[in-house]
């Protein structure tokens, strides 16, 4: 209600890129961890999950942004969830129709996109306050960031656990798979190692800046 009168910020690159890296849903905000870890045992599964989530994110952003002046404040969360659930049901049936193999690999986690807090978080924090164009661009950025994070985790797990990347064998027959990385603990370990790596890079950059006197 207040959102319509508020001045809208210009549609700049920030709107798109903030979700990609600076506010990456998985690595920075720690949202949507469940699908990020559960279906990231191969890069292909991770990519499919990321794309499905992006679709839901775009669809729900569009609808919520369109309806943002009509949804009463008291029941907004419930309304958002219902909107998201509608798109997830659609995705569920689409994937089922397109590839049964993928559908079985992702299992219940397609339906569990509904409770991906990254999507609800976007609806509450962005789409409900911004015009349609902004919401779509921002949703796309967030979706891309989510997909990127998933593929980064998935790729490492697949390389270590299966010795392949997107199903292409990398090391030949001699490779001894490091099985723990495709099992549940591996998901935790890989995400944790990525976070440590980012922290190291950030720290090194900060030290450098201090040294240059900026």
């Amino acid at each position, binding site marked *: 209600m207040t959102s319509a009168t508020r001045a809208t910020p210009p549609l700049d690159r920030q709107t798109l890129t903030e979700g990609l890296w600076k506010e990456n849903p998985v690595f920075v905000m720690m949202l949507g961890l*469940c699908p990020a*870890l559960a279906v990231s045992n191969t890069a292909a599964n991770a990519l499919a999950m990321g794309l499905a989530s992006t679709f839901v994110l775009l669809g729900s952003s569009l609808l919520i942004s369109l309806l943002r002046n009509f949804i009463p404040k008291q029941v907004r969360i419930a309304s958002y969830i219902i909107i998201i659930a509608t798109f997830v049901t659609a995705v*569920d049936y689409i994937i089922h129709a397109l590839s049964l193999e993928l559908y079985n690999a992702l299992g219940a986690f397609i339906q569990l996109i509904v409770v991906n807090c990254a999507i609800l978080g976007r609806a509450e924090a962005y789409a409900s306050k911004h015009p349609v164009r902004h919401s779509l661009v921002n949703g796309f950025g967030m979706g891309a960031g989510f997909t990127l994070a998933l593929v980064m985790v998935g790729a490492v797990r697949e390389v270590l656990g299966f010795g392949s990347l997107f199903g292409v064998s990398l090391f030949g027959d001699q490779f001894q798979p490091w099985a723990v990385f495709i099992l*549940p603990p591996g998901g935790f370990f890989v995400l944790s190692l990525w976070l440590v790596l980012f922290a*190291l890079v950030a720290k090194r950059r900060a030290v450098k800046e201090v040294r240059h006197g900026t």
Partner: protein
Amino acid sequence: MAPDSLAYIFLNAFLVNNFVLALFLGLCPFMGVSGKIKTAAPMGAAVMFVMLVASTCAFGINHLLVRFDIEYLRLIAYIAVIASAVQLVEMTIKKLSPTLFRMLGIFLPLITTNCAILGMALFQTFLEYSFVQSLVYSLGAGAGFSLALLLMAGMREKLDLADMPDTCMGAAAALMIAGLLSLAFMGFAGLGG
């Protein structure tokens, strides 16, 4: 044990396929409120209660949906039920203990988006459990969630005092511990056969 015996179903949800550590469900509250045992315990209890309510309702709803051949509404119906159950818990806690209500903060309404609960409701439907089996399953799942939360909280309380490289602090350390816990829980894999 037979795979459809109640003890097997409970152990399966509680330990072998622990919702948090083996199935990656409910990680957000797991990471969010596992800092202190004092908040972890009531959170576990709240999730357990919501799970029981959700399981009961989901069982009834699924029967109705199948009867009228509108299964495509399952997801929407389940999530609506869970949201209402969470609202109920929220009001109860607010009335009984305002301190606890403030401590749990944003994570209380976020139980709605706790994938462990929706996951439990969906799994019990896929597995075609009977009513009693569903109840036992949800009890096991809730107990498993609480167990993981408490174990994690105990360790993180100790970890606060440990001397660690500062790049590994926070989320990275918590995830590493969760990984080790998950590794430990894999030891239960043969249990119940």
